[in-house]
């Protein structure tokens, strides 16, 4: 179990993290989700020991590792830009963690070779052991980085924006591969992402971060359907921010997903500016009087959509108000 207690970190005058508390159970797959500058990568690096927190404690299975060096924490770290050693072959990269061990703890050359082959098989890179990183595609490099991190048999796998530098197609394949790998190995894993879709799709639990603070911790379902703060509502999934008074529902703001608004006989008048098909629904974009944001509504694709330029009535199906 990984426990973070009241983690604080400043970079000069800039507070990167304040008072982050988090508990991660063994075998969990956790996403640290937030916009850039939210402190998610800093938190990941503090867990790894690549960054030292200014205050608070990091506990691995109840043991304070705050003063433990990176090398001794037993974490596998996968960097956003892979950080492969470019003068070494793929096999040498994967073997690195095993071959720098103290002589007494080191496996024999043959054992290391076998282990490397096993790992390359695990990430489906059999036969590419002799290539240099420069000869691989982005997705393949990311797999090498993953195999290299797994080689030291870490008790915790940390991934910093693991799919950030890849194109959409490769990203999807690799996401699936990583999730399968996690299921098979049951290795406690934490990954950083700014992509809410990625977090919702892959994680057992999502930690939503903003401005150096944790806004909400919950399963993807909880975070999506019951956002704890306006920030979470706005960041996870698409949200329309509407004054409740518009629909005679009292004060405060309503945070409504596009599918939580409906076009019908009642509600506020919306000037339709754009209509297009978004998968299985019509996405209708338009303007409400007195609000300068674009309002997004999803409506049943089986029904004919309103015409651009028309004015329709819009009402919420549910109410969600933050104090």
């Amino acid at each position, binding site marked *: 179990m990984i426990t973070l207690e009241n983690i604080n970190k400043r970079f000069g005058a800039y507070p990167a993290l304040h008072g982050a508390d988090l508990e991660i159970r063994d075998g969990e797959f956790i996403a640290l989700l937030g916009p850039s500058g939210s402190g998610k990568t800093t938190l990941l690096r503090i867990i790894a020991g690549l960054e030292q927190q200014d205050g608070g404690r990091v506990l691995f299975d109840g043991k304070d590792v705050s003063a433990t060096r*990176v090398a001794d924490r037993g974490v596998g770290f996968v960097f956003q830009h892979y*950080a492969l*050693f470019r003068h070494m072959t793929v096999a040498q990269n994967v073997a*690195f963690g095993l071959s*720098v061990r103290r002589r007494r703890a080191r496996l024999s050359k043959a054992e290391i070779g076998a282990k490397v082959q096993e790992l390359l098989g695990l990430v489906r890179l059999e036969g590419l052991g002799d290539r240099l990183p420069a000869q691989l595609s982005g997705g393949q490099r990311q797999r090498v980085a993953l195999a290299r991190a797994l080689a*030291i048999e870490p008790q915790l796998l940390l991934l910093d924006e693991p799919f950030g530098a890849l194109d959409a197609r490769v990203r999807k394949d690799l996401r699936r591969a990583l999730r399968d790998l996690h299921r098979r190995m049951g290795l406690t894993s934490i990954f950083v992402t700014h992509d809410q879709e990625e977090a919702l799709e892959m994680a057992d639990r999502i930690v939503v971060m903003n401005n150096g603070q944790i806004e909400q911790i919950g399963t993807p379902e909880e975070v999506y359907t019951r956002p704890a703060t306006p920030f979470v509502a706005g960041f996870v999934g698409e949200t329309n921010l509407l004054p409740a008074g518009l629909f005679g529902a009292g004060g405060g703001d309503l945070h409504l997903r596009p599918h939580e608004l409906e076009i019908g006989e009642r509600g506020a008048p919306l000037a339709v500016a754009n209509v297009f098909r978004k998968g299985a629904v019509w996405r209708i974009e338009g303007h409400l009087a007195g609000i300068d944001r674009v309002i997004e509504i999803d409506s049943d694709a089986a029904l004919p959509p309103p015409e651009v330029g028309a004015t329709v009535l819009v009402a919420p199906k549910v109410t969600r108000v933050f104090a």
Partner: protein
Amino acid sequence: MSGALVVRGARRGLLARAGATSESGPTKVLLIGVALVFLALFLALPLAVVFMEAFKGGLAVWRAAVSSDDARAAIRLTLLVAAISVPLNMLFGLAASWAIAKFSFKGKSLLITLIDLPFSVSPVVSGLIFVLLFGMQGWLGPWLRDHDVKIIFAVPGIILATVFITFPFVARELIPLMEAQGRDDEEAAVSLGASGWQTFWHVTLPNVRWGLLYGVLLCNARAMGEFGAVSVVSGHIRGETNTMPLHVEILYNEYDFVGAFAVASLLAGLALVTLVAKTALEWRFNLHAGGRH
């Protein structure tokens, strides 16, 4: 969008002849011509003159000039100075750039400025600094004399001045390279359990090897060719404290032009070898740098 199309249409006549980003024919010829004339006049011609003058009296005369006792002593001393100062500055440069590029600490920008100091100070002044420090009238002069240590007008002074002058070459080459490479590779190595020394030896050093070699090459060229600072501290004692550049000057002042140009041709030859090696390295270097990501 339509605006760009209009512009493109109006310039079609010109663009038909040359690509969108290249100059028109006459301009191109003129610019290349000027550059070539400049190169020939200021670089190729002097180089040719050096070799022509050196071999004016024939190969035998050239050989005699470069194998006289004084010339041999000057060559030996130059090689000795380079053999000591280049490895030293390779170590200093590596250490300084490793510290600057991979760690954050107070006084970092001051350190970078200090590394550049030998570039910004006139070599003659650099030489004078050592005279003021270690010379008879200098701060440490009396103490050195009492302990029978000779630095100024002796080989140690020449080595000190050369080390000072050539200090920035390796560091200047490595700092931008290491900074561009960032700390990811080192952090990856450390997270995989490598010690600091293993990280340096297996990751950092291989990552900068071509840049390091390039810096060492430039450092060596300057160490062998340095005139100003060495001239101030050497004392020009023939056969003892004359390096090749100083020897060339002495011969020239004595109207021994063939001898002067013969020794100069060795230095020019070194420069050519350095240039070829540098080009070859740059080619390797770019090949490597381009292979990232």
